[in-house]
């Protein structure tokens, strides 16, 4: 049932709403494969073309060029109602004039299933999504989280080839967002449906995806597993957008790097030539901080107690500003502003930007 989604050389240019002869290049040369049964997120800042890409897959926008394939079948000329790619809209788009039950069976009715099948499928999905008790309510009597579940149930009950989510959790509060994303992930894995999931929330993306597609300005910057895009970002943009990053200048020396005169070996050798100047990514939590000894000396410019971590802004001698996180600060106490300390980057975490 699950199918791969393959996107090749996809472009979308809108004519700009203000002046018809200018165009907005919303999606640029996107190539992407989603393996059957995988959940892939499209992650990027607002306006980077995520929704446009998703809407092209659903058939609501016509690509300017490029191909969209479900399995072996080219979908470009297939009408949206024949694509079998159910979508969960950011605004939920629940039919306000229909009850919860009627919303859920809307698509099934159009398939003219036997009444018993229809009922069975609907009951099962209402059960799974915990909506059984409220199936006769009208949507405006539901809370945001419940409406979200109706939108989810309505899409999943179709047992589509592909599930599309457009920021489905962005209208919910933080707590609900966390539980809902776990629910979505479990359902998707249980049913084994291929899914594309749009979000601008990096934590959400990392917590539910098999793979993450990081987009910026209509371009795919990197595709990879969550740990990959975090630990080995392909571009400065990815490193900066996902988590916090210190960018450290260095020089390639004999397969390792030299930072401010100190040599480090690399866990993943770079293919930059010897002697070239490079930029390294150093995550704040990959730096050890000590009052007595370390690789570089530094001055505390700002110290913030955040509960589970203390976040320091340091001026590292001869290098520049670094953000450093120290976990469990309640035990150690906070270094005061202006105090002199020492820092040591973890060699294994040093990552050279290609």
């Amino acid at each position: 049932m699950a199918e791969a989604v393959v996107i090749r050389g996809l472009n979308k240019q809108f004519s700009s709403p203000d002046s018809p002869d200018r165009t907005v290049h919303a999606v640029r040369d996107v190539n992407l494969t989603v393996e059957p049964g995988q959940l892939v997120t499209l992650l990027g800042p607002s306006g980077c073309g995520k929704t446009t890409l998703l809407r092209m897959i659903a058939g609501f926008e016509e690509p300017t060029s490029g191909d969209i394939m479900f399995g072996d079948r080219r979908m470009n000329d297939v009408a949206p109602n024949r694509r079998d790619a159910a979508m969960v809209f950011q605004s939920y788009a629940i039919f306000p004039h229909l009850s919860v039950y009627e919303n859920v069976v809307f698509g099934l009715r159009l398939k003219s299933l036997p009444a018993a099948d229809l009922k069975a499928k609907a009951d099962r999905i209402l059960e799974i999504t915990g909506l059984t008790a409220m199936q006769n309510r009208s949507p405006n009597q539901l809370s945001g989280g419940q409406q979200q579940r109706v939108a989810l149930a309505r899409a999943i009950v179709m047992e589509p080839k592909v599930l599309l989510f457009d920021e489905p959790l962005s209208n919910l509060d933080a707590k609900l967002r966390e539980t809902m994303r776990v629910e979505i992930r479990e359902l998707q894995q249980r049913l084994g449906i291929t899914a594309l999931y749009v979000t601008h929330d990096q934590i959400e993306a990392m917590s539910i995806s098999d793979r993450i597609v990081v987009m910026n300005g209509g371009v795919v910057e990197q595709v990879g597993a969550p740990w990959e895009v975090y630990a080995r970002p392909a571009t400065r943009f990815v490193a900066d957008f996902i988590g916090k990053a210190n960018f450290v200048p260095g020089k390639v020396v004999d397969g390792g790097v030299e930072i401010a005169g100190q040599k480090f070996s690399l866990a993943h050798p770079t293919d930059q030539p010897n002697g070239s100047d490079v930029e390294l990514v150093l995550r704040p939590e990959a730096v050890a901080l000590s009052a007595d000894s370390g690789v570089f000396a530094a001055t505390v410019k700002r110290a913030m107690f955040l509960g589970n971590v203390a976040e320091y802004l340091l001026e590292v001698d001869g290098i520049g500003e670094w953000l450093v996180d120290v976990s469990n600060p309640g035990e150690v106490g906070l270094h005061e502003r202006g105090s002199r300390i020492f820092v040591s980057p973890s060699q294994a975490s040093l990552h050279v930007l290609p």
Partner: protein
Amino acid sequence: MLTNARSQLRILARDPILLALVGVIFAAILVFVVYPLAMVFITSFQDRGQWTLDHYGLLAERRLYKNALANSLSVGAMVGFLGVVIGYIAAFVLTRLDVPFKKLLHLITILPIISPPFVSAVSILFLFGFNGLITKQMLGLQDFSIYGFHGVVWSQVFTFAPIAYLSLRGVLASISPTLEDAALNIGATRWQTFWKVTFPLTLPGIASAFLIVFIESLADFGNPLVLAGAAFPMLAPQAYLEITGSFNLPRGAMLAVILIIPSITAFAIQRYWLAKRQYVTVTGKPTASTSKIVSDPVKWLLYAFVLLFALIVVMFYAVIIVGAFTQVWGFDYTPTLAHFAYVFNVGFKTVIDTLIIAIITTPISGILGMLIAYLVVRKTFPGKSAMEFGSILSYAVPGTVVGIGYILAFNDYPIVLTGTLTILVLCFVFRYVPVGIQSGIAVLRQIDPSIEEAAQNLGASSLTTFRKVTLPLIAPAFFSGLVYAFVRAMTAISAAIFLVSANWNLMTVQILNQVGSGRLGVAAAYSILVILIVLVAIGVINAFVNRMTRHTNMVRF
């Protein structure tokens, strides 16, 4: 742009039903809106197959035509001015002031909108005619004539001021009262606040209402025909007389073209220039609150004015009702049922004809209106703005012109329709669909498009989406489209009078004939019947639309 059109066509081709629909609607607009208009223009420039400007030359030579043009324009301007004054005061009092019986006064004020076109004209004849109750019986005037400029103006003011009122009501209700409060707060007097804040904010709305009334007045056929008199020619009736009286089609067409020019100009200004200059100071629900810019004496003075207008409206209807039960107005005031008996015996076929035509027209017009609104708001296809323009064009074209266009276009090969039910239905559908389209567009623009996309995404075709999702959601607009279509089919005269025949006749035309032959009682009886039918129909349509939406668990949101 060409590649753009091609890609739009490609999307359309994926949905064959939609493609067919767009094609059929385009064809229908071309044949039933554009083609008749083109025929009017062509005919006005021809004489026995030769191209000529002679007919237009007559405009300079003939006093009759020159006067008709001048009279129509001056009546239009006067009615526009008076209509706006009355409409503005009524709208201000009924939306912004704290006065009793607002709801009732509102209903009375808009009552003339659903009436047949002759109610005020016949009432005026009853009261001020040669045998008028006021002029002859009460004042004993012998040589007073109501016919001419003042008769037409007064009659039209009562017919069209309600339209100005409705339009200005929306404008006044959407202006935030906090603006007036702010002006008062920084020390402006009430008078300054009105002239420096309220009035300028409503000025585009005032201009717009003036132009709407001006267009209606120019296009009006019934009042001038009854009250203008021979000494006061006007364009619309003159064009009619050229064609039915002298069988001079080119001259009728020429007058029609002359009539259309100011109408279309006013329409274009109203729609494409003024509409963009309307100030709306609040978004969402209008926050009507009591205005503090009038002192108590002024408030009650304005209120008295609105009451007076409402009283005159009520009086007009009372006179019609009494007149319908009166033997011979002006001579013999004994009560009688003879006029109704006449309507139900001699004129019953006309009643049935009119009902059949209205009942066929209403659903076609209502659904077509919603479909076009849906296509225009939600779909992209080449020629979309042309479709919107074409479908509302007929709103700006005076009925007389449309009627002349239809007899010119459908009297002969390739499409022969004269004298049939079809021609009346088509004429009504395409003339009265714009109101449904406009309200459909307004409602649709407020509905999140992803609700319809969700339906498609779940497998619904365009047509199913429209039927199961869009239509229930735009039920209020659907309702007003249906009501408008029905009311107009029952009360129309200007275009229809060219298209009726012995087989298919209309009550409004009968009313006109009765007025023409001096049987005002029968005319009044017909008018009452029309009003009753319209009221019943509004109730039925309301129940129907309610059921249609409740059927699918309509939820108010």
